[in-house]
């Protein structure tokens, strides 16, 4: 069972629709025990970083998600949900994140001659061999964001070139982040979600 964290942020239902379409057993939940017992956890999210962290705190989910990561459960953060995995965000002040992957979230510079938000289909370039990231190599996926993650190169599995290098897939052990929306990225997005499901199904992988 994959639990999609239910904390009142936009794209949850579209993600659920994609998982249902793929026949992946899933449920929306904010329940501590259910989340800790899940085979896999997906943290979606659109909107502002601080509001999302506040929403997680209101539901006492910050420590629960840290526990999920610690116990080795495969975890996938999507869009803002990926950004929340990092230490902090400089979006409207300085807000602490979940600190599951080291790095910070900063604004896409406005002086690069590119449009902000970074919205549309952009091409992923594989940076490291990884079963999930490989699905996206040279493929276009759908992005909508104004902030991006700065992290160590070893955490970046794939990135897009948008004047700056924007990490599109990141990973630290069992914790994975996708800056784009796999649930809106057509066949390749669905293939990525399927790979995550395989990771969840593979006990060796998830508990090593």
């Amino acid at each position, binding site marked *: 069972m994959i639990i999609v964290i239910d904390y009142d942020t*936009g794209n949850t*239902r*579209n993600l659920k*629709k*994609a998982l*249902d*379409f793929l026949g992946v057993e899933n449920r929306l939940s904010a329940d501590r025990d259910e989340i800790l017992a899940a085979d896999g956890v997906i943290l979606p999210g*659109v*909107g502002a970083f601080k509001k999302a962290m506040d929403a997680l705190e209101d539901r006492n989910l910050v420590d629960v998600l840290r526990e999920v990561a610690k116990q080795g459960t495969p975890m996938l953060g999507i869009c803002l949900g990926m950004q929340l995995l990092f230490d902090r965000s400089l979006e409207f002040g300085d807000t602490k994140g979940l600190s599951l992957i080291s790095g910070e979230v900063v604004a896409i510079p406005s002086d690069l001659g*590119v*449009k902000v*938000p*970074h*919205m*549309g*289909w*952009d*091409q992923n370039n594989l940076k490291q061999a990884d079963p999930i990231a490989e699905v996206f190599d040279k493929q*276009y996926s*759908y992005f*909508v964001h104004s902030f991006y993650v700065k992290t160590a190169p070893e955490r970046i599995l794939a990135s897009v*070139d*948008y004047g700056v290098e924007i990490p599109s897939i990141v990973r630290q052990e069992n914790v994975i982040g996708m800056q784009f929306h796999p*649930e*809106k*990225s*057509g*066949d390749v*997005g*669905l293939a990525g979600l399927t790979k995550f499901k395989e990771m969840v199904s593979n006990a060796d992988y998830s508990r090593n």
Partner: protein
Amino acid sequence: MLAKRIIPCLDVDHGRVKKGVNFVNLKDVGDPTDIAAAYQKQGADELVFLDITATNEKRKAIVNTIEKVASQVFMPLTVGGGIHSVADMMALLKAGADKTAVNSAAVQNPDLISEGAEKFGSQCVVLAIDAKFNPQTQSYQVYVNGGRTPTNLDAIEWAKTGVAKGAGELLVTSMDKDGTKSGYDIELYKRLTAAVSVPVIASGGVGKVTDFPEVFQQADVDGALAASVFHFGELTISDVKKELKKDGVIVR
């Protein structure tokens, strides 16, 4: 860098696609989900649904349609036509739309744009504009009510106002070109892309495959919308993308 977008547009009336689509052997040529899935397969980058239902149950029908489409088709969906309130936007976004396009209602009440942008973010609010060239003033005039009613708004100024109010994208139809199959209105889009920094989607006038590279290269728009050339199978999305690639335009 971002790929330029090719966007088929579907007119939906009471949950049915108005003009049948016959580019593939669909079982039901009027079913929005079947058509949307076929376009996803062809490589469309986004779909626009224009609700042309004329009755009071209008919202309910289009919300149900989007709910169904979004369960089977996984790409960005934009919905326009008769959106009058933040509640209308909310219902569509909840059903699975990614963006809502406002047109006449925003002309009547420009704060609808800012209210939507504050509530959902600019990326969810598209300002749709129907523009017609006025030879006397040498400028483009905004029309509302499906192009039936002229306003005193200048299209470029209205575009700038809309962006200042929070519109995240402009979907601009040239009424002079619409239905002519003589290509996009390059001059209109040149003026628009020079005036605003948000993405601009060109609409109206496609007749042949080279119309696409022309509008991307000469007017620097972000997306090109078309209806009949795709629906009637005169062009496929992949024909268009092949042509664009050949001309060095970045596409998915």
